[in-house]
């Protein structure tokens, strides 16, 4: 990059830049900022304005460091490394500057830490302790006052007195969402962050604001006075609200979920969550849950609570009876989209190998000819495209964080993003978008046929076309990869016989052709079928349900075994691009029964297939054995299916 590069005697020409920070030799790629180089070397430099996802502005002046041969202190967050640079972060001069900045920052900052939601996880508090002066020399006068605790929306509260004007929220709206809702107003010591005429925020990404704010100026209204960080238990999880697979930290207090916080995965969420996902806290704290195994007799036989072993035994007996009497085709197997890969692996084996039915699914719609080719483009690769075509509104409506990635691709990588209305034909599109190096096509799975048509048309006039299909539900993609659908086995291998899809299974049950239903956390799926679902539940002779929700399925089940909500179990789920992501137990289970994998193994054993693994890790080993793409993917990587199967 620079002409000085490599001129230092003895410098290794590895394309990197060598510098020294606090006596430590560091080699970093050209263009790296001193702050990043120091962080990599394990040297802490305090910052407020600098943010890993935003461009440097160097306004807080907290990161000033001594750079030899430069007369003034330099902001580490905005200074690019150069060969032979010598940086000191521990000099008296630096220490004094830091102390001085903190004195300035605290001049007009209220002393309301005890009632500030940020207390305990506040950079101003932390750095003031670590680098700040013991007291302020400001004589007792009025601080600059602003209106406190102003609601910016139903989600966000603003306290301008706490604001240190780091510009992060402004840059967030500028650089990350492009919505420009929060701006700086006024100037000098009277500067505030504000919306136009105080109008409420409209963004569906507001929840990120308190996380980019380094202090307690922007806070979550729903989290107001809820907890202190030291009272929280934190587990790594994946947001369950769509198939995008945003990584989250699941923060609980006293066995209650209190908030989802972002957990940066640059390949997926890039540390941003949508409000739909972030504020989906309440549903995980619902107290109405299926808590005990239950047996119901047909007719007026009534119901009784049983031990789980008896419930499993009875489930096996009843399913076997249907199979014996009506054949395996009289059994349908359904699961919800919050089923983990491990559960799905066992469930589809149970259906096919033990029960012998081909009628299994995780959704109502049919996707004939589903091929891995629909999933060739990864989320982060959108930035590598030269053009991106987004078909209709649905992809971004289903997976809102996708919009932020598209904006980033547009802004940072100059990718041209075309949002295509329903009316535009594939041919017209091919007229408009041609000669591109790589076209990304983003389509919702409900419109996958149009996606295929558009991709084919674009492939003829562009160098390469790759598709990203937005699947439905947190593990809609994994359930397809694992063959939890008719017609395709694990890994998209064609199934030997034709099977019914979700809707057809319910129709067959309503018609009396399917006599037994095995339902794994499928209440939402059955409910989505509306009246058809109700008829199916009424007519089916045997309903074996593993279920968390108190709903129609639990009410109709002949054998009911309590299930576990996603946050209550471990395993993995696969996002729409095919990334296999681990989830960990964050909440204690609502019932005493074993996890679903164990229940499925018990059921298999009771049906004559003993020895199946039941613990998550063991199931996962078997899963990876069966599905090489997942073995290669491991945890957190993409499952790639090289062979497209017709």
């Amino acid at each position, binding site marked *: 990059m620079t002409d000085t590069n490599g001129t230092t005697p003895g410098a290794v020409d590895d394309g990197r830049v060598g510098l020294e920070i606090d006596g430590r030799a560091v080699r970093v790629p050209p263009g790296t900022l001193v702050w990043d180089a120091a962080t990599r070397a394990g040297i802490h430099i305090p910052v407020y304005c600098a943010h890993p996802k935003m461009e440097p502005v*160097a306004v807080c002046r907290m990161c000033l460091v001594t750079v030899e041969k430069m007369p003034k202190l330099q902001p580490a967050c905005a200074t690019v490394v150069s060969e032979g640079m010598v940086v000191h972060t521990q000099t008296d001069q630096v220490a004094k500057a830091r102390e001085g900045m903190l004195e*300035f920052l605290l001049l007009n900052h209220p002393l309301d830490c005890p009632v500030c939601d940020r207390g305990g996880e506040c950079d101003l508090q932390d750095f003031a302790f670590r680098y700040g002066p013991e007291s302020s020399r400001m*004589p007792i006068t009025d601080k600059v006052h602003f209106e406190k605790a102003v609601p910016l929306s139903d989600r966000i509260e603003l306290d301008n007195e706490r604001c240190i004007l780091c510009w992060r929220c402004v840059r967030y709206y500028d650089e990350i969402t492009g919505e420009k809702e929060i701006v700086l107003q006024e100037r*000098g*010591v009277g500067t505030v962050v504000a919306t136009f005429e105080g109008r409420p925020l409209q963004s569906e990404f507001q929840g990120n604001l308190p996380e980019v704010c380094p202090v307690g100026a922007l806070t979550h209204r729903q989290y107001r006075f809820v907890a202190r960080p030291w009272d929280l238990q934190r587990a790594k999880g994946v947001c369950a609200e769509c198939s995008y697979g945003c990584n989250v930290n699941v923060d609980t207090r006293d066995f209650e979920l209190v908030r989802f916080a972002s957990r940066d995965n640059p390949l997926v969420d890039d540390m941003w969550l949508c409000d739909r996902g972030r504020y989906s806290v309440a549903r995980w704290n619902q107290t109405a849950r299926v808590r005990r195994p239950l047996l119901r007799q047909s007719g007026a036989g009534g119901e009784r609570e049983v031990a789980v072993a008896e419930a499993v035994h009875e489930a096996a007996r009843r399913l076997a009876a249907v199979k014996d009497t009506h054949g395996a085709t009289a059994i349908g197997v359904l699961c919800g989209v919050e089923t983990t890969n491990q559960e799905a692996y066992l469930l589809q084996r149970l259906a096919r190998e033990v029960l012998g039915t081909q009628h299994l699914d995780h959704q109502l719609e049919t996707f004939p000819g589903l091929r891995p080719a629909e999933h060739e483009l990864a989320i982060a690769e959108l930035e590598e495209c030269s053009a991106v075509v987004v078909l209709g509104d649905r992809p971004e409506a289903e997976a809102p964080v996708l919009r932020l990635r598209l904006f980033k691709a547009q802004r940072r990588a100059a990718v041209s993003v075309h949002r295509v209305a329903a009316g535009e034909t594939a041919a017209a599109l091919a007229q408009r978008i041609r000669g591109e190096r790589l076209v990304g096509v983003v389509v919702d799975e409900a419109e996958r046929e149009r996606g295929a048509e558009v991709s084919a048309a674009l492939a003829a006039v562009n160098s390469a076309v790759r598709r990203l299909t937005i699947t439905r539900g947190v593990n809609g993609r994994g359930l397809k990869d694992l063959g939890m659908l008719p017609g395709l086995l694990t890994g998209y291998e064609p199934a030997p016989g034709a099977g019914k899809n979700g809707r057809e299974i319910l129709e067959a049950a309503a018609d009396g052709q399917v006599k037994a239903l095995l339902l794994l956390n499928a209440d939402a799926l059955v409910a989505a079928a509306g009246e058809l679902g109700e008829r199916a539940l009424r007519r089916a002779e045997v309903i074996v349900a593993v279920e968390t929700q108190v709903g129609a399925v639990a009410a109709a089940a002949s054998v009911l075994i309590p299930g576990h909500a996603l946050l209550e179990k471990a395993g993995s789920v696969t996002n729409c691009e095919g990334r296999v992501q681990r989830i960990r137990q964050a909440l204690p289970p609502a019932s005493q029964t074993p996890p679903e994998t164990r229940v499925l193994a018990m059921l298999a054993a009771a049906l004559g297939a003993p020895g199946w693994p039941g613990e998550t890790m063991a199931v996962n080993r078997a899963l990876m054995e069966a599905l090489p793409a997942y073995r290669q993917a491991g945890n957190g990587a993409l499952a790639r299916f090289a062979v497209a199967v017709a």
Partner: protein
Amino acid sequence: MAEYKLLLKDVGTPELWRLDSYEGVGGYQALREALRKYTPDEVVEEVKRSGLRGRGGAGFPTGTKWSFLPKDVFPRYLCINADESETGCFKDRYLIDENPHQIIEGTLLAAYALRVEVAFIYIRGEYFDQRLLLERCVEEARAAGYIGRSILGSDFSCDLIVHGGAGAYICGEETALIDSLEGLRGQPRLKPPFPAVKGLYGQPTVVNNVETVATLPHIVQRGGEWFATNLGADRSSGTRVFCASGHIERPGVYEIELVKTTGREFLDDLCGGVWKGRALKAYQPGGGSMQVLLPEHLDLPMDMDVYAKAGSSLGAGGMMFMDETTCLVDVSLRLVDFYRHESCGKCVPCREGTYFESTLMHRLEAGVATREELAALSDICDNMDGKCFCPLGDTATWFVMSAYKAFRDEFEAHCGAGGCPVRSAPAVAALVNA
């Protein structure tokens, strides 16, 4: 001694602001000549040869600044900085009022030299009549073929837009000016990239002061060599237009040759000396940002480098004189308040530091500050100086710190005095400036 009138030579010509009047005194001849005789690069060379240094305050050599533009990157932009807002400076306003076409001609010469097709004159909002005047003159010049397509039949085309600010000192900082011109809050930009590489609309941009470009017609007409050898000397070539203010008999605008004039000559011969027969206590050259100097410095030649060595600067051409009755704490307070008012709020040390400074200075002038507060003041200034995002915050400390150093007793006398010991009780003035 007398003035040397180069930029002001035609002042007094009736209705000089009219095009025909300006042409009558040789106006636009330099532009005609340049288009006929010189390539753009030759104009750059001529300016380099003249040794002309920017008149906006920093004194950077104009030709060198121009040569930082990357070759073959177009379009390029030229912004003439008429945002003059430095305390004690009013020369740009005077130049506009008295000879607007000279500035327009100079702008066009710079635009020609730099191959710029759209140039701007950014004029501060408070110069309302001056903006209207410039707009009117630009239209006149456009109608006469000096501005627009194929100027005077050459292949040089240039549009000139007069852009009015709306009240922000910081827009005189060149990157803030560019942001303001782009329609943003006028706040300084992170450098690098420098404007010469990535300025207005992300394109190579030069920002020059009004007086700097007003000098160009003279350099082009009489040659860089003439300018460098005949006017001023060494690294301070040419004339400068100074703004005399404060306790003097004849405040106003005076153009002098650099180096060949001393401060004393400037004060006594041009400004009529200190008013009311009083003695001089201190003066501030350069404008409100610069350090205070004492009567003993008056004998130094008005040379940019000499003044820098004396711990101050000729800056943007202010010369503010203070007589023996002046309270330096009061003057410091006004200047500090100015910076608090004009801080853009971007960086912490300037935004909060100027507020802190101002609070302490008000207490000091009111005679209620303690000695600890006075000690804190200089430490706070140290925590600002050199640590701010742009020079505004740094310079907010310069006058007060230099005054504190030079008039330490006077500052200390304010501590706990219950009022200003200088202004309210002139007798106390005897104890200061000993």
